[in-house]
């Protein structure tokens, strides 16, 4: 067996946790319990987990506006996340950040980012930190197909190649930059090929296939740890929900999402594969399903019960460091 059962169960649990977390976010947003703009990543779980499952807390990831999955895959506490998304005082960022600005520095998660293309330059900095201090830690940035066209991202790719930084660039191509097709917005035929032109190994993978994505990430992570410089991975995936929760998604094709849920659901594909290979048994995964449902239900309840920040204290706290 190429994968240990413990590893596979951990993968399944993490993917399932992201799925249920996102589905509850949608429900709680619709119920008025989550304010603001929320971008769900259900459908894209395999990439976050494949990329992060073997990282340590000293490895750094930088995420996007669609960042819940990356946070969970990197080990962020789902209760702290839910409280943050609900704007509560005991959230991961004390309610100051919200869904688009979740961070957990203790876990090596330096931030979701509401500015498209904001993350990759910052991850270059994290990679430079590791390289300069002589550690074997790496940085990993997540970008979408939309942010692939931002100048900041293109600059960051070249910069990382020039400085040979230990930076793994993950591009989640879900086919849409907001409500615009990736095929329209990318002037090239292949994002993977374009990224490769920056002078780094660049792969395309089917991001709904956990195993293919995991193996590509392993190659890139090993290369970064060994001081061989950056790599890029374009992982094609599916966004099950809108650009933001509440997006009517008029731009999507008829039955497109329903078909994807049947044929391109990374969780189903994972489950089918491990059962077909007899790597895991169904009851083990069913038990995880139940545990995860309970965990997320309790996260929601704790989020609802958590206290709001106190404007008299919290509004002006942490604008600057205090001594």
């Amino acid at each position, binding site marked *: 067996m190429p994968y240990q059962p413990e590893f596979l169960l951990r993968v399944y649990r993490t993917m399932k946790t992201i799925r249920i977390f996102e589905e509850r976010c949608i429900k709680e947003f619709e119920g008025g319990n989550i304010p603001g*703009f929320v971008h769900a990543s259900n459908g894209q779980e395999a990439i976050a987990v494949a990329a992060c499952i073997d990282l340590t807390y000293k490895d750094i990831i930088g995420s996007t506006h669609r960042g819940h999955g990356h946070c969970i895959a990197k080990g962020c506490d789902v209760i702290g996340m839910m409280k943050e998304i609900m704007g*509560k005082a005991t959230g991961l960022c004390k309610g100051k950040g919200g869904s*688009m600005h979740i961070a957990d520095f203790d876990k090596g998660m330096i931030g979701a980012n509401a500015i498209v293309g904001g993350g990759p330059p910052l991850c270059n900095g994290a990679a430079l930190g590791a390289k300069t201090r002589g550690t074997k830690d790496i940085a990993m940035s997540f970008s979408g197909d939309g942010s692939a066209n931002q100048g900041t991202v293109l600059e960051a790719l070249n910069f990382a190649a020039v400085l040979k930084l230990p930076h793994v660039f993950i591009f989640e191509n879900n086919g849409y930059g907001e409500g615009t*097709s990736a095929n329209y917005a990318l002037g090239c035929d292949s994002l993977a090929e374009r990224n490769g032109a920056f002078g780094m190994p660049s792969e395309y993978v089917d991001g709904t296939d956990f195993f293919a994505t995991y193996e590509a990430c392993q190659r890139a992570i090993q290369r970064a740890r060994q001081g061989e410089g950056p790599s890029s991975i374009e992982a094609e995936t599916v966004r099950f929900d809108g650009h933001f929760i509440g997006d009517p998604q008029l731009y999507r094709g008829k039955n497109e999402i329903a078909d994807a849920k049947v044929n391109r659901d990374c969780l189903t594909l994972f489950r089918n594969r491990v059962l077909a290979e007899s790597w895991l048994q169904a009851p083990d995964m069913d038990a995880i399903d139940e545990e995860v449902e309970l965990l997320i239900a309790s996260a929601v309840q704790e989020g609802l019960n958590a206290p709001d920040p106190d404007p008299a204290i919290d509004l002006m706290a942490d604008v600057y460091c205090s001594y």
Partner: protein
Amino acid sequence: MTTTPTSGTSSLKTYREAINDALRQEMRRDPTVIILGEEVSGGAGCAGQDDAYGGVFGVTKGLMPEFGRERVIDTPISESAIIGAAAGAANNGLRPVAELMFFDFIGVCFDQIFNQAAKFRYMFGGKARTPMVIRGTVGAGWRAGAQHSNMLHPVVTHIPGLKVVMPSNAYDAKGLLIQAIRDDDPVLFLEHKIMYDLKCEVPDEPYTIPFGEAAFPRQGTDVTIVAISNMVTRAIEAADLLAKEGISCDVIDPRTVSPLDEESILESVEVTGRLVIVDEAHERCSLAADISSIVAEKGFSSLRAPIRKVTAPHAPVPFSPVLEDAYVPSVDRIVNAVRDVLGA
């Protein structure tokens, strides 16, 4: 003076509809007017409906079906390229209206605005003409968090060569946007996202409102309140509350902050001797500080009390609703500031 519409018809329109009206009428009048930005139509290259968004706030809805993708251009998410293309096109025969979905994104493309478009006219000895408009949404209130809620008008107001327009109601939005499109300089047209559904009576025909002419939504003699953008609504509310106590406020809406109607502000303070400035931007190096300095310098002899500024605190915009509500200047804070300058 405001150009009067030729026909007398008008209708109740939202701020969103008034802006859409202005864009549509100018695009019909002038084939060189184009729109470019992210999701200004939406659905480009997709299997579903075209014009799926019409801008994420629906402001440009219906324009692509009427004018086509050649004139209503959905762009990649590349703000520097959007603004640069608008500036270059403006130098070369077009009148682009570029959209920054959130004006916070000037952080990504600021060079193209302040070091390029703003300077062409002067730097090239008056030979360049850059008739472009950048529309962008500003302000807090949507629970959108620190990176989508800024009021950055003081940053752009600081730059010579840029004109900065901040309409506070649907009527002004239409007239000022038509003026902006016809203007030969780069104009930043800043729409407070909390106002899109606010309605008022708006003429159906095109009309223009010149830059640098304030509006006076309430007239009074005790205290001058200068309010910017979304804060005009709150200043009016404060003035109406205070009127019941017999306190008469002169509410001034500059409408454009560059150029700024200094004269109207100074004339008002000459009568009232008291000034409260209300702005959702931070206080330091701000428009509120700027107006305060103008009045202190040019209207000092009129002042009978220290000037008071009601602004957002010196902090990023917080996400949590309770914090965001405390962040944005409230009607209460305006009322208290007015009482304060009256020594009441």
